[in-house]
């Protein structure tokens, strides 16, 4: 039994040592250049935006200033009492 365990462990160690050696030798290669022909590309879907540029028409903004209103006579009424006695 001891012999089997020992041989298994030694086997595993030898495999990991081999794997480390293989990692070191990996070489990545990329394409030096690639040509994409956009004209020949096909995109599936629907056009949502209008073809030409548009601006919504709206009325010119006019600012209404508050002009004098006479909603009550509080000022005059109060003054009349003050001037009574």
């Amino acid at each position: 039994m001891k012999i089997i365990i020992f041989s298994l462990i030694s086997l595993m160690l030898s495999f990991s040592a081999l794997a480390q050696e293989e990692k070191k030798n990996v070489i990545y290669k990329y394409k030096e250049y690639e040509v994409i022909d956009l004209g020949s590309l096909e995109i599936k879907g629907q056009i949502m935006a209008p073809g030409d540029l548009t601006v919504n028409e709206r009325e010119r903004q006019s600012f209404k200033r508050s002009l004098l209103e006479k909603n009550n006579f509080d000022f005059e009424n109060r003054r009349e009492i003050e001037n009574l006695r």
Partner: protein
Amino acid sequence: MKYLALLIALVVAADASASAKGAYELYQKDKSKDRDKKIAHELIEGSYYFSAIPYINTYLETNNEIDKELEADIETLVIKTGTMAVLNLEEKRLESFNIPSISLILGTRLFNKDQNLKAYEILSRIPDSHQFSTEASLIKGTIRNLERKNIEALNLYEQCSKKAGNLESSSKGEKLKRYYNYLKETCIIRSARVKIEEKKYEEALVIYEQIDKRSYKWPYILMDQAWANYYLKDYNRALGLTVTYKSPLLESYFFPEAEVLMALSYYNLCLWDDSLKVVDHFYEVYQPKAQALKDILGKNKSSHTYFLDLYYADTKTREDLNPFIRNLITQTRKQVKFNLDLASLKAAKDELLLLKRLKNKNDFTETLEGNLDSTISFISAKINFYIKKEIFTFINEIHKHSFSMFNLKLELLSKKRDDIYNAKALAESTRARGSDVNVNRKTSQYFFDFNGSFWADELGDYSFGLQTACRENKVAKK
């Protein structure tokens, strides 16, 4: 006739002297807690009303009971000296006395301090049958009016005008009659104002017709009527009413608000140039004068007599100082309070002269003279303050309306720019100035042509006949 007048004067003087003597005896011998009350009564009997004030005040400071005699004395003092009667007493103290004269003074004082709830409660203590209930109804109506409780306000104003009318008929003195007439008309005008606030302009205008043209209140209602016509879109009538203030008879009545209303009326008739002229005139006339008045106020703000002296100064001195001062003083002279205070000042001075003429001088008469001197100084300072306050209010009014005019000017410039864009200005330059066709008239209204001169009987009935320059209105008319 001369002898009779002399005899009456002698009798009055003798009576006054006797009462002063009676008061002196009480001052010397009486040590009871009612001494001050008795001295005050003796002085009032002798027509020394202002001299009696300190004794009444001292008594009320420490005593809670008011008998019938004292109630009558306080009432006499209120009639003869106004609010001075209980001047030294605080509101808390006055609240504990439940007699009509004190309730009226306290209610008025609280109203002027914006304590409306308390004022209403105090004024409600005055019985309806009492002569002071007329003024109480007016102030209570004003409180309800400010609270926008219009139905209650209208009821109170109506009660006030009825009571004042009855008192006017039953009063014997000319001054008293005039005072009750003033109260009656004030209450009628108040009812009309409530109608304007409720946007019932036609009804308001009918109520205003009750005020006689000769009335003291009449010049003031022109402004109200102009506003009612303005909201009825009768801008020509509004212009006619506001232009009335330019008549020589109403020279002293100047309202910056009238200028704003005039400019607004032109604006609503789309007559931009006319409106702009009014706006520019406002800035040219009112602003420099307001600044001059402000300078006068600033220089004399700590003086207690400057403005009163100005009142006594001759017309030329006032005119040289500032033309508005003369007009302001004239307008102030027409206020009831000012006249009452001025009458009080004169009466207090006369009383002091009477005291100085007494043969038997003693420490009591000296105390009376000292008190009267202080009272006279107080009334003088009060009148001085009143005039100062009137000038201050006027300056504030100008500033307030300058802001309205500024907004209107911006609006006018904007409208003129639009017209230039629409090439409308050229087309309007040849418009006619006015025509009878554009005058709206009711059966109760007169109409007079204005030919550059004012006629007293025509005042208040002028209407312009300007055609509107507003495009949509013209189309509608066609």
